[in-house]
């Protein structure tokens, strides 16, 4: 059980880092929408349309680290099943 919890914690943290890195490594806050530029051909104006898209940020990494940390701490208090 102890080992399982620690493995889950590591998988959680590594998975979060990989997900964050492969989605742009956003060093700001997590975004749930991103701007899309749209150009009006008649006026030449650049408009902004917001597209729903999840882009994890540093707060996402922090939450993953917190979750992994909690699992790690719990694993310290769980009895090892194997003798």
């Amino acid at each position, binding site marked *: 059980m102890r080992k399982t919890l620690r493995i889950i914690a590591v998988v959680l943290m590594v998975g979060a880092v990989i997900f964050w890195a492969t989605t742009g490594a956003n060093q700001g806050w997590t975004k749930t*929408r991103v701007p899309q530029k749209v150009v*009006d051909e*008649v*006026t030449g*104006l650049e*408009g902004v349309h*917001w597209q729903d898209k999840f*882009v994890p940020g540093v707060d996402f990494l922090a939450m993953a680290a917190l979750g992994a940390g909690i699992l790690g701490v719990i694993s310290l208090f769980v009895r090892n099943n194997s003798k």
Partner: protein
Amino acid sequence: MKTKLVILALVTLAGMAFAAPQTFDFKDPKGINNAGFKLDAPLESINGSASGISGSVVFDPSNPGATQGKIVVATSSLIVPNPMQRQHMLGDKWLDAAKFPEISFTAATFKNVQTTGDTTTADVTGRFTLKGVSKEITVPVKLTYLKDKLGQRVPNQQGDLLVIRSNFTIKRGDFNIMPGQFEDKVSDTIEITLSIAGASPK
């Protein structure tokens, strides 16, 4: 002599008809009109935009310096990418969108008016109202009059377009938006970019 006077009167009237002030409506059915904003603080940069643009401007192509009008932005239409940040931005401590649903600019006077073809640049002085506080500010604007172009933008409509572009800055502290607080994360200086087109149907 009488004939010449009649001809002169008719030409003057014809000229006035072609150069009459027009009212342009800035509600955009295509959703292109927008006001972008940027706050660049030492610890954080915030970029967003607002699309809830409305208002009207009276513009005379033969006398651009006499332009009058008011542009309104719905406070609730301001968007930033992070949902929590947006919630705080529109909340009662910052913009208080529920109590102050509109941000507006009412143009009063135009100075340094320069017209080249269909494009006019000028410095516009007017009242900028944000979170219930009104201040007189002067901003540079560029007006582009697009005669008979409305039909190309909106099918089955004939008329003219007026494009307004402006870049200017304000200080949130001047409008009682958490003055002097959190300036390392939320810059006191707000850069605003206005890109809007109004329609005057015939």
